[in-house]
């Protein structure tokens, strides 16, 4: 069980500042997702917590104990890497048992714990195989097995699903969430995929250029984004932004409306435009509309909405679902 606290943590590589100074508290048992575009410093932050990189300033403590200069192995955290990082010359059994062997546990204990982890992850039939004889999903499960077997205080996941195909990714996402429900251990998960963040997290930390843009539960971030960056990053398809006269009439520099908060009509509405490409998904229809002022926005029609390329359509934002932003991009009101 562990609470992880970061106080004014910064990281520089030479003259390049990756993280300028950041405070964050991760509560015991929480599933926290670090999300942001590539190069935002989310993986670096995870590696600082792991101890694989040294901080340039600030402190990291786990359960109130300062761990800033503690080597990775002694922090009691386990990590799952994007490339799985399995030991190619060892069998699945040896891979999962490796942390226990390093901890000097006896063979009987190792065998028992490896068998337990393998059963949890459906790997029992593969224990004597080498990593190269496994599929991507199985490899990732071995990597997770290697992490859970030592009963760590917390798990660190560095984009663990990015090497898997789409269908497998959805499955593994569920498996990891299920694992968190079972173990109730602190988990920190890094991803650039906002769908993973929304579906798995108790708490999302949105990062941009090494700074925390906003911290909150998935729905908090969805309902009350603090600024343009978070508003644009959370939600799929992304929020529409309008500037100029349309924004001015709301007393803002920019206004934002999510595609799902726009009502489409062929007769009347607040904004007029011409339908461009319509994406028919069956459950939803996403229509890309070119407004009279030239801006292109996306609207969601429920179900199989009948619209053709070139149709004139009217869009009306739902009451109270329009976000206003000032010159600096911060939300107003």
């Amino acid at each position, binding site marked *: 069980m562990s609470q992880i606290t970061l106080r004014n943590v910064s990281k520089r590589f030479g003259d390049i500042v990756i993280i300028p100074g950041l405070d964050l508290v991760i509560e015991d048992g929480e599933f926290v997702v670090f999300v942001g575009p590539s190069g935002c410093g989310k993986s670096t932050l995870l590696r600082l917590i*792991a101890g694989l990189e040294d901080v340039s300033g600030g402190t990291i403590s786990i359960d109130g104990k300062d761990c800033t200069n503690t080597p990775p192995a002694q922090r009691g*955290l386990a990590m799952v*890497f994007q*490339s799985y990082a399995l*030991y190619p010359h060892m069998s699945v059994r040896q891979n999962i048992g*490796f*942390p226990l062997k390093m*901890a000097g546990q006896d063979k009987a204990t190792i065998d028992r714990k490896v068998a337990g982890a393998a059963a949890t992850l459906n790997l029992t039939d593969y224990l004597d195989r080498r990593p190269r004889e496994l599929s991507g999903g199985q490899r990732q499960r071995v990597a997770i097995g290697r992490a859970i077997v030592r009963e760590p205080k917390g798990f660190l996941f560095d984009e663990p699903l990015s090497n898997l195909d789409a269908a497998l990714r959805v499955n593994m996402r569920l498996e990891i969430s299920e694992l968190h429900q079972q173990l109730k251990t602190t988990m920190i998960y890094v991803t650039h995929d906002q769908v993973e963040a929304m579906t798995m997290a108790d708490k999302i930390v949105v990062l941009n250029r090494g700074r925390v843009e906003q911290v909150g539960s998935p729905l908090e971030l969805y309902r009350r984004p603090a600024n343009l960056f978070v508003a644009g990053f959370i939600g799929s398809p992304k929020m529409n932004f309008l500037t100029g006269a349309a924004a001015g009439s709301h007393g803002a520099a920019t206004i934002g409306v999510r595609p799902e908060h726009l009502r489409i009509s062929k007769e009347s509405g607040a904004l007029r435009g011409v339908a461009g490409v319509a994406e028919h998904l069956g459950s939803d229809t996403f229509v890309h509309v070119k407004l009279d002022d030239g801006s292109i926005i996306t609207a969601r029609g429920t179900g199989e909405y009948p619209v053709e390329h070139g149709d004139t359509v009217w869009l009306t934002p739902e009451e109270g679902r329009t976000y206003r932003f000032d010159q600096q991009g911060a939300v107003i009101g």
Partner: protein
Amino acid sequence: MARAVSTKTKIGWTVVVWAVALVIFFPILYTIITSFKTEQEAIQGFSLIPSGTVENYVTVQTQRDYFKPFMNSVIISVGSTLLGVIIAVPAAWAMAFSPTRRTKDILMWMLSTKMMPAAAVLVPIYLIFLRAGLLDSRIGVTIMLMLVNLPIIVWMLYTYFREIPGEILEASRMDGASLWNELVYVLTPMAIPGIASTLLLNIILAWNEAFWTIQLTTTNAAPLTAFIATFSSPQGLFWAKLSAASTLAIAPILIMGWFSQKQLVRGLTFGAVK
């Protein structure tokens, strides 16, 4: 789609390749043939049919004691290679996994020492060996050949280590492996094919090294290369005996190379194709 090649073209190329291989191998073949001739036959002119005498081999062993330089060659080549690998593993490991801005420069500098003609440093090295009492000693030659081949050993190991993903080493650190355990359980098993071909290649290089061994040894520490050179004596060349000695000198390394050719080719082309 593979290119279609007619049988005629195939046969043509096969003949060409065999011809080229024969030209390259011919000096060695002719040395072996000559070693079975008498001295008389050997100087008479070109002939591919020897009388088949083994007298030269007997002479080489009984009069000049082939076994001693052979043992010197073994000790010097294996010793210098092992010593080199022991020094090079930590060096290559550091450069591969904790590179600095100067790592590339250091590697280039190490390689550049191989571009310098050895004769340029002969006098200073000779004087150092003279003062240190290392002339004609096995330990001196072993150290010298280790130094000569060290850049190649470091380069080869560096290339192999670079192929090992850093995340695997980080994973082992997260799993609680100490530096020692990381080297023993993770890095070394993964690098064994690379270390093996480095060992093989450098034993061959050290075995064949002639410049320094001839300059720095006389009798006690002379390996086979220096031994062969003694056959060109002021009394004239003994072609047949020289050939017998040469055959004996190259035989062990040829046999070793034959059995390990797969490993050697893999080692030399490592990283070139994936």
